[in-house]
């Protein structure tokens, strides 16, 4: 496929999702392999940019404390020593129309932006495994938090992330599935329901109180 894309002059994105807790081992070992495979994309597969996505073997999410640590360290290491274009993708354990989902997205958007990634991609809400459990509102949160995080001091981002991650990381076993797209949007008009807008506003207000400059 890559040979065909090369000859077509296409932009080539190479995606790879290292599994934390699989055969590679722990956080640091996974990060070492993630650096290696990121470099592989540009060395062997002629990528224009690389899409990462460290994912938790048990929870199927990229927003766990451990997988965020992998992604943050790898991006910062690549950023400090190359000018490669690197991206990350979002898999939350909670589904649309829930504050937990929005907080998970906020945590990773802070991380990816402050660790120097050039593109953020999401979101596969509810682990990306339930049909129609994804909506544009999650991308709104991803974008607004990324814009607010850009330029912030990394120490401040680390401190803020600790608070946000702590707010949801004890709820994985009972994470809400959320609603389907057709349940939380007016499908004909393609507009979010009042319920989802209220939940979004509540989550945004909490993030503002924590120090994020989000639009009102």
């Amino acid at each position: 496929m890559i040979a065909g894309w090369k000859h077509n002059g296409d932009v080539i994105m190479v995606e790879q999702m290292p599994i934390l807790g699989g055969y590679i081992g722990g956080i640091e070992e996974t990060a070492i392999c993630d650096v290696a495979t990121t470099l592989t994309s540009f060395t062997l597969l002629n990528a224009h940019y690389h899409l990462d996505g460290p994912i938790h073997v048990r929870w199927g999410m990229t927003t766990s404390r451990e997988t965020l640590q992998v992604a943050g360290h790898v991006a910062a290491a690549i950023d400090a020593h190359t000018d490669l274009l690197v991206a990350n993708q979002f898999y939350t354990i909670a589904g649309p129309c829930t504050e937990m989902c929005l907080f998970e997205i906020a945590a990773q958007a802070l991380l990816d932006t402050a660790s120097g990634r050039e593109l953020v991609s999401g979101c596969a809400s509810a682990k990306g495994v339930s049909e129609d459990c994804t909506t544009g509102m999650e991308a709104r949160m991803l974008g607004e938090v990324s814009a607010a995080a850009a330029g912030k001091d990394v120490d401040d981002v680390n401190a803020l992330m600790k608070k946000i991650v702590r707010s949801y990381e004890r709820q994985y076993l009972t994470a809400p599935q959320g609603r389907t797209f057709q349940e939380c949007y007016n499908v004909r008009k393609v507009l979010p329901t009042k319920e989802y807008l209220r939940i979004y506003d509540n989550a945004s207000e909490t993030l503002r109180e924590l120090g994020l400059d989000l639009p009102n």
Partner: protein
Amino acid sequence: MASIEKALTVYETYLRSERGAKVTENVWDNKIVPNAALALKEKYDISFGDEFIPTDPDLKKRLFQAGMEMLVSVGIYNVDTERIIRVTEDEVRAGIRAAPKRVQLGEYGDKVMIEPRKGNSSKKPVIQGGPTGATVSEDMFIPMIQSYAQEPIVDTIVNGVMATVGGVSSTTNTPFEIMGTLAEIRAVREACVRAGRPYMAI
């Protein structure tokens, strides 16, 4: 003067995957990779503590070196040929040098540039919105993608997987996989048009 390595092409990668050392996937997964990763973690004294983003330049350097050594000393496995592809550090560095530093995504009024941010620049990353590979029912596909494309903060679209095409499951290795893929592309483009952003990158 030392010669400068050229970046590898995907063709050279393929040829190396035909003639590299042969190992089973089981040995690669359960022995070679975990053993090497653990050894490099210890060699480079890598520990993250409770930080999410490192602020210590030396830790970033050691992690980069460990990753580079992982790639060069272990290689990359081709599961189809069951062989290891080897590269040198010079070749990796040539690949880094040759990689694009600025890429245009989308066209005309809907284009965005992806370029190095270097640390936490005040320039936000490119925002790619979409289901990120999650399954989407055929009937909901266009409005759902439109829900991303109409968000002003979203710059480009990442696709979802259309569950069926014409009511038939788009199963891997069947003709419906091709039909489904093409239907997805048309539907994503239609959603972008409906959002008034016809030239967004998809």
